[in-house]
């Protein structure tokens, strides 16, 4: 079942819910660059239930953003295995996104309409040449209505909903006239303008200052409750995860190494990587002078393949002869139907 060399192991563990909006199965994504093949995703599986927020956490380069882009079919890499089942809730139809033509009409119909995305850099994610209103209307005109006046009205409405003080004026502004926080609100407005089933938020607050970050997170939480959109929340910040998410998937080098509910992740983390990740968060109340823990070593270079568990070179609990040779399977933590981990310590 496990083949450590090619990384072709499959996950036989499924947390199945009838309510799933998206079900990613064994997703493999490769980049063919001049310097070699980069295996960005090596069999990623997860699912997002309706109306829930899934946090995807990991260091930079672990493939979390590429997972989001793969669902949108916007990645520049090649999806070479697995499936992405998406269920549009109004119709109940399930579609395998990986089978759709990348820029075909079906895929374009899903983008922005059923699944939308917010990006990390609010300063550059809006086109500087068009007004904010124009860019929001563009999505509405594409998916919802042909009527320009109606589109304008909806754009202003949604701008109001995301807490813009003067939505009419904001709609006529150009991106460079707005602050980072305002732009991210505009991006959220654009993403939610067609009331999507799933919103993929790729580090939406990383580039913002702390106060603005809190406001944006509040806003997303509120809108999520109101509209009922599921959110895939990509971040490297455990604090943000605690604030936003219902469930968490921890990624390391193109694999999900632990999946659990928010409580389990914070109070009962299993994988050594998750544990180190949590220890590296500064906390109030910790004795002064105590050193903040960091994970030793760095992420291996993306062109090489690590045999065995990809984390073993940095793992404090690595078992010689096992962890560096055999890739662990994803298994349920004893006694749980929602908590899985990919580690030899728990098999």
């Amino acid at each position, binding site marked *: 079942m496990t083949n450590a060399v090619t990384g072709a192991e499959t996950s036989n563990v499924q947390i199945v819910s009838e309510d799933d909006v998206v079900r990613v199965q064994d997703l493999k994504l490769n980049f063919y660059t*001049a310097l070699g093949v980069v295996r960005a995703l090596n069999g990623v599986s997860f699912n997002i239930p309706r109306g829930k927020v899934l946090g995807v956490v990991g260091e930079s380069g672990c493939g979390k953003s590429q997972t989001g882009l793969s669902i949108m079919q916007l990645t520049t890499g090649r999806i070479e295995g697995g499936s992405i089942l998406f269920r549009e809730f109004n119709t109940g139809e399930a579609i395998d996104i990986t089978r759709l033509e990348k820029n075909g009409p079906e895929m374009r119909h899903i983008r922005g309409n059923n699944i939308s995305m917010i990006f990390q850099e609010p300063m550059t994610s809006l086109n500087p040449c068009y007004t904010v209103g124009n860019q929001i209307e563009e999505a509405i005109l594409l998916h919802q209505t042909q009527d320009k006046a109606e589109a304008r009205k909806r754009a202003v409405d949604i701008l109001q909903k995301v807490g813009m003080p003067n939505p009419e004026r904001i709609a006529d502004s150009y991106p460079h006239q707005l602050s980072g926080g305002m732009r991210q609100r505009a991006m959220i407005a654009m993403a939610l303008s067609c009331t999507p089933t799933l919103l993929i938020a790729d580090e939406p607050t990383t580039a913002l200052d702390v106060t603005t970050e809190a406001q944006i997170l509040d806003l997303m939480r509120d809108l999520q409750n109101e509209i009922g959109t599921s959110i895939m929340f990509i971040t490297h910040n455990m604090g943000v995860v605690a604030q936003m998410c219902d469930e968490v998937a921890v990624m390391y080098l193109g694999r999900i190494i632990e999946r659990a509910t928010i409580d389990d992740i914070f109070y009962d983390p299993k994988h050594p990587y998750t544990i180190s990740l949590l220890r590296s968060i500064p906390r109030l109340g910790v004795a002064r002078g105590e050193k903040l823990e960091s994970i030793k070593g760095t992420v291996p270079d993306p062109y090489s393949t690590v045999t065995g568990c990809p984390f073993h070179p940095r793992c404090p609990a690595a078992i010689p002869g096992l962890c560096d040779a055999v890739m662990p399977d994803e298994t349920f933590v004893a006694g749980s139907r929602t908590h899985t981990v990919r580690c030899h310590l728990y098999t």
Partner: protein
Amino acid sequence: MATAAGELPRAARGKKQEDVGQIPQWKLMVRRFRQSKLSVAALFVLGVMYLFMILGDFIAPYQHDVLDSNNPFAPPTQIVWGPDGPGIYGLKQELDQEKFQWVYTIDTSTIYPIRFFVQGYEYRFLGFVPSKLHLFGVEAPPDVNARIFLWGADKEGRDLFSRVLKGSQVSLTLGFFGVFLFVIIGSIVGTASGYFGGVLDNLIQRIIELIRSFPDLPLYMALAAALPLNVSITVRYFLITVVIAVIGWTGLAREVRGKVLAFRGADYTAAAIAAGAGHWHVITHHLIPNAMSHIVVVAMLAIPGSIGLETALSFLGLGILPPAVSWGILLRDAQTVQAVVTYPWLLIPVILLIITVLSFNLLGDGVRDAVDPYA
């Protein structure tokens, strides 16, 4: 204190290497450069051309400025295989009374052999060593018209091959030095402007704006026309170089200034200044090294334009002046349809010019892609 700041970039470089699989940066550049086959080919072609240029006098069979009334517009010589190796036939010259053209007929009675490593006119090898040795020459009695014109002759009967070789010593170098000069000016002025800012920056920017308010070519032409005419070839060469540099530096200075402004605002520069590094240290350790790759690329891409400029000025009679030779001067013979149709070999210098400029363009493009290996 200076060492503390000096260690910063070294540490930063080390970090960068690790990210792309522990490969040194220059190796990545070389690897990337070699990927673009066209650029490698261009480098090879240029290498051969410069080799020919350096060995020009040795390769050239005749002096570039020796007139020969027996051979105006003599066509490229046909090489035949004779009893003792390769040789050529003699030529007979006649005037076509209707077309007023010289017509040449081959006299096939005798084959005059081509000899290698022969004695010829005296020159200085590599500019220093006096020598009479030439790569090849024809052995023929002085009263026979048997001269070897690999690429034909011009209207004065001068050997085009020898003239092209001689001309390359101007055309392949002048543009190069012009760029070299303006890179130095542009880098210094741009760095000063961006780093010190204030009044100096303002003044420099106004001067650049003024120079750039003139259209390029007319300004080059005006300056070249203002140069004194009765000076030696070397002085003229130097003056043309200066003209190219005097106008060319402005663009580079602006770009360097932009880079310096960006780097000056960067955190590592702030850290160096906070650590007490002086202006000179910051400029030489943080600004110049970072702007270097950019400067090199701009310079590489400017060389073909500069070579073309020298050719154009010489063609227009404002650059290098006869009796000196440059490719631009050779092109003057090829400016009418009639000449080109009748004597097509006159286009050979043009073809060489195109190959040179094309090669430099391709090379510059490859270098630009290569110095940015993380892109």
